[in-house]
């Protein structure tokens, strides 16, 4: 067991955990941030995606010790001052979910993608999102949502 102070969504959260415990387990089970989902624990489904210093990572394969000196953003931190981010808003407007269990990971992955490429091509979106599974098969709407979010961000930036 070791003590960690994690920077999660701008807040400094203190927790005690074995250094090798996955960040996902710490977020969900010790810090009660359950918006980040467990889908496989094997880095194969993307449900657990969080941002570490702006980069999308699989929190199920990230030991908490590796996240200790980073800025962690989870789905709970994507919303800004009660306003949905463009990606969240676009998912809502496109109805880009069914059961919604993959949605947190999809939104966080898409957020990282749009940081990197403000106006990604279809192939770039597919490549960036390929590690995220939606078992309900909502991929066409998620693609549209990411394109819509890209347009919303571009329009917002130019105002």
């Amino acid at each position, binding site marked *: 067991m070791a003590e960690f102070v994690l920077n999660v969504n701008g807040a400094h959260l203190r927790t005690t955990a074995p250094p090798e415990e996955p960040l996902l387990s710490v977020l969900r*089970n010790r810090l009660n941030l359950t918006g980040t989902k467990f889908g496989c624990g094997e880095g194969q489904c993307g449900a657990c995606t969080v941002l570490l210093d702006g980069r999308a990572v699989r929190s199920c394969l990230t030991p908490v010790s590796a996240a200790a000196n980073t800025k962690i953003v989870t789905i709970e931190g994507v919303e800004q001052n009660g306003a949905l981010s463009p990606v969240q808003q676009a998912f809502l407007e496109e109805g880009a979910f*069914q059961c919604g269990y993959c949605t947190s990971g999809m939104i966080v992955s898409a957020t990282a993608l749009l940081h990197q490429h403000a106006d990604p091509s279809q192939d770039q979106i597919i490549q960036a999102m390929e590690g995220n599974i939606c078992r309900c098969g909502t991929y066409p709407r998620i693609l549209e949502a990411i394109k819509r979010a890209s347009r919303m961000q571009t329009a917002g930036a130019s105002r």
Partner: protein
Amino acid sequence: MKLLVSALLDPPAPGIHAGSQIDRRDFLRVLAGGLLICLREPSAWAQESGRAFGGHELPKDISAWLHIAADGQIKVFTGKVEVGQNIRTSLAQQVAEELHVPFDAITMVMGDTDLVPWDMGTFGSRTTPTMGPQLRTMAAAARRMLIEMAAQRWNLDPATLTAADGEVIDPKTTRSFTYGALTRGEKLVKVVSADEALAPAANWKIAGTAVPKAEGRDFVTGKHQYPSDITRPEMQFGAVLRADGFNATLASIDTAAAEKLPGVKVVHDGDFIGVVAPDAFGAQRALEAIQAKWTVPPQPGNQGLFEYLKNNPEAGQDDHPQHAAGSVPEAFASADVKLEQLYEIAYIAHAPLEPRAAVAEWNSGKLTVWTGTQRPFGVRDELVQAFHLSPDQVRVIQPDMGSGYGGKHTGDAAIEAARLAKAAGKPVKVVWTRSEEFTWAYFRPAGLIEIRAGARRDGTLVAWEHHNYNSGPAAIGTPYNVANQLIQFHATKSPLRQGSYRGLASTANHFARESHMDGMAHAAAIDPLEFRLKNITDPRLRAVFEAAAEKFDWSRSKATPALGYGIGGGLDKGGYVATCAEVEIDSAGKRVRIRRVVQAWDCGAVINPDGLRNQLSGAIVMGIGGALFERILFADGRILNPHFAEYRVPRFSDTPQIEIVLIDRKDLPSAGAGETGLVGLAPAVGNAIFSATGTRLVNLPMAPQAHSPGESDSPLRS
């Protein structure tokens, strides 16, 4: 019918018995104040009772569905559960329509066994055709009651009053009562008949429209709490030791190392070995510290599976064919065009993204379990049996879950959590790992299908013989006109635990039938669409085929070695589907990719076109997995590919361009749409592959990523 139910509820649902009636006093206690509506002998239930559940009588007396509080907030109670199919929205739309209130005024209370009327479960595409009319009837009766109440207060004839936007209005004076003002302080119970007049779909203003998903914001912010997100004060985390294989016996066990870990409790009760720890990671560590040796008996695997199914009939099965007419041998012998073919369907997994999960809490002899299940009352009854409790001592709560696809009918995780919580004396959460979900849940049945068919030279079908071993009888009957038929389902022993699945046997039977129809069309040198239309009488089936073909531009889609075009369709559970697919074969002729899918659909009056399109598009994407690459590999009682790295599911790059054509039949009752949208894809793709390559792929999956011993190899990969 009996066989289908055994497939739906495997292992046999232990808890479906007469004790499933909710206690009337509990109900009234929960609903202190306000308006309570009861329905006498709902016709929807009468249709489902007895026949479907071996004579089990569903509750007839106490059923409260609707509550209008003094502040006008409306709660609607149903045992159906939301798993992503969007019934939280579509049912509320129907209630709002009949009750004459805004959609937002309604909160659906779903799948909580202490709060909602008994329900057998959410499966079989039954919510829309049964729960929809049920709730509409209640809402319409409530509206009429409210009008009568207002009429009494004003001393007017109810016929002179109207109801709109949650108010009863006197059009002459424009004075009004809100519904809440009418119910305040009154506890009303009214028994109403099942024949309330309902608004025709042509007049719908809220139903029939694309209302966005209820509580949608909570899904994009991570606020929605799924079963695996539930936490309770002092909650501990549990994990269960799994055997090395199916039907294994424990040879030896050493739990000493695990028991030395801080805060860990090992629970050893017969064959059940589990651990409880203060944190989830600790529980997994404790499990790993247990040394266990198992003896796994030899058992069948993929090698020889289909011979096994053919040669191991279930004892005591019903030997009568589902459909028999004329003489198939005579008609086949004299047919001009003949085709005989075997089709094989692999076991596949549901693989819901949220694995099975449960939180159990014992409190003064009462057990409460939050869990992901399609059958909250079924799970309650499993718990009643497992712990020798009475139904009123068990409450099962089903938060809207990370889907199920037919895979979450049983209460495995609920019982495990309850056992561990009982031993620990604290609430316990159990969340299955991905490999547990792939191994210890249950599978869509594997199946062997034999078809032989004959037609005259002009394309008129004359003989159709169809035998399905193990996958099930759903949609086994041909929708085409054939004078001579012999169609039979054969129940067999199954090497793997099997059960319900989205589109269950309908997918297998449609794949075989529609592939065979395509083969017959080619053998008769007739266009596959024309061949089908020639043998169809049902106008709705004809309409979906024609609509899909038109949108797809079927008549101008001529195959090349690189591009293939296929069509398939049918009907089941009140839904009519036709699917056209365009596939691309790479230049080496080795790989297949689906480029475009057009699907036409008719399920009667559409309740929410946006939700329906989402369901249908999702069904197509899910269908790609079973069609091309999903299959469970197993040998000697072990699943060989229990991870997403080895069990491929459809991903972004597998997704074709999808176009949905909805035929909204406002003149017909609404049917469910969760399942049948899946069944056209596999045959359309197989038929498209044939059109490009001349190779008929007769096994699902058609193009797995790699060849595996025990499987028939395919010339194509995906």
